[in-house]
């Protein structure tokens, strides 16, 4: 029925969604960073596979960026940050793991329900990739909403961004994908450097964003 190229692309994209789910219930920052690194590796494989089946060698740059930058450099930097900030401990989630997972399942169902009917005209690889990419995006958003910790919010954003890159590479022949992935990498580098530079720990004794809320200008 389906060709091998579709099956492999589908499997890798499904793996990304699975890893997003894994991130939802990690309650330790170290484990969360590992899951993020794993997702980056799978993303890079998925992008590389797209580069092969679309015969678009420039996508290998994006794949290389994913594995070099997002799977190695960023996790290392994050790990150094959490050690420096001394927050390699449990992180609280809002609403409990079970509820979050249920919400996640609901979001995946929603994105499949939304994307699959409207992409009937596209080729099957793009179609599945976009649907699963939207799931990854929404799960990343869910994670950013449920976490209170600045580092895990950033990790949620990065997993959201992995979903976007999956969508961009899955949309066959899309121009500027490499440029966009570079722009995103710069954005992420800024965020990570931002945590360092802003020294949230130093100033607030916590990277809990609720503590940041206390410093809102109007409560001075």
């Amino acid at each position, binding site marked *: 029925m389906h060709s091998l190229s579709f099956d492999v692309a589908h499997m890798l994209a499904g793996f990304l969604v699975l890893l997003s789910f894994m991130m939802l219930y990690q309650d330790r920052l170290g484990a969360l960073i590992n899951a993020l690194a794993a997702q980056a590796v799978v993303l890079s494989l998925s992008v590389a596979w797209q580069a092969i089946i679309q015969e678009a060698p420039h996508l290998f740059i994006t794949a290389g960026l994913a594995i070099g930058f997002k799977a190695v450099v960023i996790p290392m930097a994050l790990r150094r940050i959490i050690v420096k900030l001394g927050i390699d401990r449990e992180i609280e989630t809002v609403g409990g793991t079970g509820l979050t997972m249920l919400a996640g399942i609901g979001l995946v169902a929603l994105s499949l329900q*939304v*994307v699959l*009917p*409207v*992409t009937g*005209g*596209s080729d099957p690889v*793009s179609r599945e990739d*976009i649907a699963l*990419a*939207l799931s990854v*995006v929404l799960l990343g*958003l869910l994670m*950013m909403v449920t976490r209170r910790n*600045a580092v895990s*919010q950033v990790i949620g*954003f990065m997993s*959201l*961004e992995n979903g*976007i890159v999956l*969508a*961009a590479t899955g*949309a*066959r*022949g*899309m*121009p*500027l994908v490499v*440029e*966009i992935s570079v*722009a995103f990498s*710069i*954005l992420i580098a*800024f*965020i990570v450097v*931002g945590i360092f530079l*802003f020294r*949230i720990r130093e*100033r*607030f004794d916590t990277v809990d*964003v609720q503590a*940041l*809320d206390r*410093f*809102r*200008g*109007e409560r*001075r």
Partner: protein
Amino acid sequence: MLNAVIFTPLGAAALLALLPSYRLSAILNVVTALLTLIAAASLAWHRPEMGPLLFIDDLNVVFIVLGSFVAFTTSIFSASYIAHELEIGRLTPRYLRFYHAMFQLMNFGMNLALIANNIGLMWVALELATLTTVLMVGIYRTPAAIEAAWKYFILGSVGIALALFGTILVYLAARGVLGEGIDAMVWTTLVGAAPDFDPRLLNLAFVFLLIGYGTKIGLVPLHAWLPDAHAEGPTPVSAVLSGLLLNVALYALLRFKMILAANPAAIAPGPLMITLGLLSLVFAALMLYRRRDIKRMFAYSSIEHMGIIVFAFGMAGPVANFAGLLQMVMHSLTKSAIFFTVGHIAQVKGSQRLADIGGLTVTHPLLGWGLVAGVAAIAGLPPFGIFMSEFMVMGNTFARDPVLAVILGVGLLLAFGALLMRLHGLAFGAPRGPTGPVEASTLPLFAHLILVLGAGIWLPPALVAWFEHVARMLG
């Protein structure tokens, strides 16, 4: 000239990053902004060839001339503002070097976003502009400034990521018609081929684009970053955020709205924009009453005005579009003028709290009356330009949908009441707080106010014809 608009700020940013003397860089900053303004203004007369990456048409020329003008006046204001910040030690020369480089880099990003013909390039440019403003918002490094920058960062990044998802969906919709490759991302070909696009994909794309770029416009409920970013950054940054960056995001949304409007089977973007616009207007008008911080208050006023503008463009039609366009220009000019006065006022008083500021017309007549004029203009009092545009939106809405007009009217009145109530405490009555002299640069302030006043009394026929043409373009 098209290249000059983007490469002048880019080259200057590189130069400013290297220049150690802050006096020299403040001058270079002004000169660069002036050169960019000249290049932008020349685009109105001499239209370069359309390319697959950059293009200029009647719509974006309005945005780019307005943007370059506000950037130029802000650079003049900034020069006197930062001199004071250095004196009191809130900023160091090293930070200023960074600040100036970021200011020009932001101009580069915004101008590129405005003249980009490629929707992917437009996205990258807007991201760049966002990043530079995040860095400028956090430059004071106080806990409040860091909190504001962080919030802006996270919300802005999520918004921009969702906008990219929408952009990818537009590409998917176009690919079926225009084929793979660069053509399916070029706005001018997109809008021509839009009638054949799959409407369902376009619908889905617009939802993401509205949420994504709507975050950057500051539409309620996606506005949470906006008041903090305005209040905690240096005041020149507040002026460009309100006067420029919100407009650029609005411009991006309008471009996609035009693609959607060209497809008869796609959802009408109007009702979505009308709903979000009215929600922003009413919410921000109510929030105005409870402000205690002067910059935060005017930030909410920006949300209110962006609500009116998005509402007007959502109503569509030649009159509403014309009014929306005029409102946008007037709001940019007025709000940046207000931030120019507020910046100097906060420097004199050493505080941004409304309770610490009072009796300005007595102690600082020039600033005080400047603020009075600015607030009167922003509240929509005649004879200023905003009165005219709001009147047009109101009249047009009454003729077409009285229920919406009532909500609009209530929102406008609420905001009006709040602003005048606050203005009374700020400008009149017994002086409060320090009353030291201030070295204010009043030139940018009055240049803006005179333009706004002039537009309220007499609009040049050439400009009216131009805006009418653009209003028809917007559908």
